[in-house]
């Protein structure tokens, strides 16, 4: 809608039905006053209509953009097929908060564990000295604590959160999957294990983060508020917390750099990484490959839905 068109709006007649109702309501009034009221109401209705049109245009534009991008993708990578929403917005937000905080914590924490490594001093000095880097470490810690609280609430109060949490609980199938996967790697079998929504690798990652968060936040909190800790606990609790914090940090960092990076970045299928953490979508091709059971479930659900719709008609 151009600026010129906008100016003509006040002349536009409003909905005849509304006009009739307006005339009916203001019939008994003084003609001058009735005219004034009618004008006011008309103006208000026009404003409302205009706003509605503008909103609809905006959402249409977004929808159109999405559709065009999707078409382009289909032209470019037609083999990938339909895109399925794998991770919802809430989950992606949690992941972004978590990896930001973990990166901050690692780059400010590791120099303290390895002070003699030549990079340590450089990294610490990048923040402007140890006093600043410890503040950044606490900012990262605050973000991780927030993430943990957010995730707990998500697992309890969100329907998808509850569903995913239950699906992440380790099952005997995961052990069988792991054994079969190793057999597949070794060429003993040609059949890859059929994973559900979460493979045993993803489950391991999830529970590793869970364990890491509990240890790191627990020991970190004891060290952060050391005077309160020592008010109630003897000094060797601080030493234990320090040791656990430092050792678990190394374990978590190694797990991220070696295991997680291999699985999501260095792995030839994913190299140099996918954008799933950003848009949360998985292609038909990939879901069939990586999570066949989940794909079957989605398809079954869809079939049921269309059948139900058919019955309703």
């Amino acid at each position, binding site marked *: 809608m151009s600026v010129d068109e906008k100016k003509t709006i006040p002349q536009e007649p409003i909905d005849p039905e509304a006009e009739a109702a307006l005339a009916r309501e203001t019939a008994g009034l003084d003609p001058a006053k009735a005219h004034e009221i009618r004008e006011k109401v008309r103006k208000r209705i026009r404003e409302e209509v205009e706003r509605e049109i503008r909103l609809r245009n905006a959402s249409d534009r977004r929808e159109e953009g999405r559709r065009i991008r999707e078409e382009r993708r289909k032209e470019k990578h037609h083999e990938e097929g339909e895109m399925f929403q794998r991770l919802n917005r809430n989950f992606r937000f949690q992941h972004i908060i978590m990896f930001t905080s973990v990166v901050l914590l690692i780059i400010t924490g590791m120099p303290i564990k390895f002070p003699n490594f030549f990079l340590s001093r450089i990294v610490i000095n990048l923040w402007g000295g140890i006093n600043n880097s410890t503040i950044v470490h606490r900012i990262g810690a605050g973000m991780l604590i927030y993430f943990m609280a957010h995730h707990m609430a998500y697992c309890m109060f969100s329907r998808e959160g509850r569903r995913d949490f239950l699906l992440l609980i380790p099952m005997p199938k995961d052990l069988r999957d792991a054994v079969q996967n190793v057999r597949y790697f070794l060429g003993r079998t040609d059949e890859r294990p059929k994973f559900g929504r979460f493979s045993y690798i993803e489950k391991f990652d999830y529970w590793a983060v869970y364990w890491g968060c509990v240890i790191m936040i627990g020991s970190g909190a004891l060290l952060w508020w050391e005077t309160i800790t020592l008010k109630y606990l003897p000094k*060797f609790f601080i030493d234990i917390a320090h040791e656990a914090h430092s*050792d678990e940090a190394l374990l978590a960092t190694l*797990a991220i750099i070696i295991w997680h990076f291999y699985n999501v970045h260095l792995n030839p299928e994913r190299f140099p990484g996918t954008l799933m953490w950003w848009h949360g979508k998985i292609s038909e091709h990939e879901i069939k490959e990586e999570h066949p059971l989940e794909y079957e479930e989605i398809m079954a659900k869809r079939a049921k839905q269309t059948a139900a719709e058919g019955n309703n008609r």
Partner: protein
Amino acid sequence: MRKAAIFAGIAAALLGVGALLFPPPAEARISLEKCTLCHGKTEFRKILVDGKIRELFATADSLKGSVHEKKTCVDCHFDVSDIPHRERPRRVTCTHCHYKGNAEGAPQSDASLAYFESVHGTAIARGNVKAPLCQDCHGSHQILKTKNESSAVSQRNVAETCGRCHIEIYAQYKMSIHGVAMAKGIKEAPSCTGCHGEHMIYSPKDPKSTVYATHIAAQCSKCHGSISIMSKFGIETEQVATYKESFHGVANQFGSRTVANCSSCHGTHEIRPAADPLSSVNPANVPKTCGKCHPGANPNFAVGKMHIDAKKKEAGIVYYVASFFKYLTIGTMLVLIAHILLDMYGRTKRLRGEK
């Protein structure tokens, strides 16, 4: 005969020139005799404006036995030319001879020049008349080699010399473990100069100082990190390593001045063994000592070992926590890396078309 007379004449002339160039000890004796006309009297002294008496007694024996034994009065007091002195003779400037490349036979070293940048030298330069010059520490006429036991700056006497001005610190040091050890004649015990340095003494707040917050650990570990020194007294050396691994030590190495260094807990001049009830690291005093930085410190701070080495069994529960994480990390990593390698192996095989 005549030839001989000419030869004798030339020889005499040469000797005369030689005598001018290389004055014999006879002249020194003349100088000394002139000075001792007045300064040789025992009652020769001056009453200063503040009522203090300055002894001006000096004889041929004044320099006897000192490092300047062979020097005469005017070698140092070179501004004195008239008797009686028209102006008050100035204080002796030692750098007249004491610099590298001097021809006077003084030690060939510039080490003492560091004094001019030290806290004492800069105080003098700023016009502080109380700040010490060379002779205030080394003495004036009876200057002895540092290695000489009776020298004012020998290892045993230097604390007393410094204590002439730094009285309170001297009293604290005298009662500390280092002062007591020094009094017992233990050569390894540090005196003032052991920690603060000799000529390049700076304020502890000056980053150049050897006892600056971030330098203290290095300074203490010169002795406390040395097994050969500490084993003589049955003192452990692991304190240095454990401190460096602790958060205090790490932050200190990264330049934090607020974090605890050795002296924050053990004290500076009043260092005492932990068993001493007056020691700042005695368990009874630990809450107060820790409370300087950790407000509200209580006796819980003293429960458990202070300098902990998690790699040793003496660390108790901390050792077991460390071992648990060690094996957990090794075990987990082995499994994960094995999984990755198997994955790569499988992929490679399939890519090559083998099965």
